[in-house]
């Protein structure tokens, strides 16, 4: 079902969604745009640029008590972009067994929107610019009107309640893309072959703090740690789940041995997980090309340049 809505009706439609769901939407906070729960539609709700954190921030929130029963929630993500939608689809497969993820995700609603590419994004490389995986898609037209596409039963039901003219046919505008290109055909082979690029990896590691900022903002980074804590008040024990990152020293240390002692081992492991182990386990790269890690990195590392360089070295080594 497709409807044509005015800006006023989009705002009313937002209220419709907010009546049923807890809506997370891009919001302005201190001069930055982040994903926050918001009851009312404003000009940031359909923001064309990325929020600093992906929806994973909400879906994989720290769990206070891991042994408790998760509370089912009705969440809606309003105005997220297609790269994040694809990341959620991949995450659904990985976390299918996790009750805390499912409690948030099972009844959730995804309202996606179009975006403008920034200099650091490269979603087309991973096919993350395809119009799929959402419940509703809001497309801004040149005349200031909005076309709303409903893809799922949940979406259709909501859209039916909204005012607006039903369109018999409408088409998606292609998502804009920039010049960033990575050749994926040999990427897995190239990343898998660490020995060949030892110098290359060491060079990157020398320029990396190992701070995990990239993992914090990556929509497909989901390492976690479980920590037992006691509340000073009352003295109750609980096992909580907190964010972790494979960049931290001691991440894979056991009592007498550290399996990834150097930063280069951990950095390599990150790329290996994203481009070798991820595809093997889930059939998809653990990267959607959102470019958030490039924006977040304090050391100015650039995943596009790193991967293209590996591709180039690999080409030279194999041909």
């Amino acid at each position: 079902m497709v409807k044509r809505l005015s800006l006023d009706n989009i705002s009313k439609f937002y209220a419709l969604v907010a009546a049923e769901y807890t809506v997370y939407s891009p919001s302005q906070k201190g001069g930055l745009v982040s994903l926050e729960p918001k009851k009312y539609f404003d000009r940031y709700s359909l923001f064309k640029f990325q929020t600093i954190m992906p929806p994973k921030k909400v879906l994989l929130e720290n769990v206070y008590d891991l042994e408790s029963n998760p509370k089912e929630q009705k969440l809606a993500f309003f105005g997220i972009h297609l790269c994040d939608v694809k990341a959620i689809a991949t995450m659904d497969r990985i976390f299918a067994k996790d009750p805390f993820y499912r409690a948030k995700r099972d009844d959730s609603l995804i309202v996606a929107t179009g975006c403008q590419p920034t200099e650091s994004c490269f979603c087309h490389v991973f096919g993350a610019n395809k119009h799929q995986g959402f419940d509703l898609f809001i497309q801004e037209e040149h005349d200031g009107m909005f076309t709303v596409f409903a893809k799922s039963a949940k979406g259709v039901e909501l859209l039916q309640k909204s005012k607006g003219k039903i369109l018999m046919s409408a088409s998606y505008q292609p998502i804009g893309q920039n010049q960033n290109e990575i050749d994926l055909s040999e990427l897995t082979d190239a990343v898998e072959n660490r020995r060949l690029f030892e110098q290359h990896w060491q060079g990157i590691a020398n320029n990396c703090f190992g701070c995990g900022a990239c993992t914090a903002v990556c929509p497909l980074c989901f390492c976690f740690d479980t920590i037992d804590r006691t509340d000073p008040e009352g003295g109750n024990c609980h096992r909580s789940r907190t964010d972790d990152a494979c960049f931290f020293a001691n991440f894979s240390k056991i009592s007498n041995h550290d399996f990834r002692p150097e930063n280069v081992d951990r950095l390599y492991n990150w790329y290996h997980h994203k481009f070798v182990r991820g595809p093997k386990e889930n059939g998809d790269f653990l990267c959607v090309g959102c470019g958030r890690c490039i924006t977040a990195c304090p050391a100015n590392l650039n995943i596009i340049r790193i991967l293209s360089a590996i591709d180039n070295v690999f080409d030279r080594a194999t041909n």
Partner: protein
Amino acid sequence: MTLGIFSLTCCEGCQFELLNFYDDFAHVLNFYDILNFSLAQEENLPGPFDVALVEGTPETREELKLLKGIRKQSKILVTLGTCAHLGGIQAQRNFKESEVKGKRKVLPVSKVVDIDYAITGCPINREEAYQTLVDIYHGREPYQINYPVCFECRHNQVKCLLKEGKPCLGSITRGGCNAICTTNGFVCLGCRGPVEQTNLYKIKEMLKKYLTDKEINQRLEIYGEFVDNIIKEGDRH
């Protein structure tokens, strides 16, 4: 269990931070009897203590004697704050030998006596201190955060200050402060000390864009005894 809270040379801000929210501190008192806390109570006992918290650096002969006495009287000694952990502001004297003559070097507590755990920060994160005390009470290893401030900063949804051209030390500084400075737009000054296995060469290179060599070294002085290693590491590459 019994607890002693001591202060050597410092601003005593960490002790105040412990008392800042008295209701929370009162929960910790369910587990501990405070035998010595001269900031908050009049009658104080010399020990023995199950746990002693020490803030500040030993400057005078009396303080050195006091510190060694505390060590002998306590089963577990925990340092409180940046001064006790790294030397703090007074340790900058160590780097200005030409200006301040005839003074002894400022030593952090760990250089004088063995310590068991360190609660770092200027001032400390009181939740972390309470958690450490509760963990020690239950015989557990206190959970020590070993990731940089950057990780918490990014989780707080703010932009990288280093990228914006501000000399922020968040990328090499131990987190656990919930990135309180950087989230509010101030650069990280590194009060919690360096994180394990960090890239010191890179931070010097990054800061060079905004600061002179002298300024960089001054900024890194907060790391106290580690700063020599930092400067050496930086030159090695």
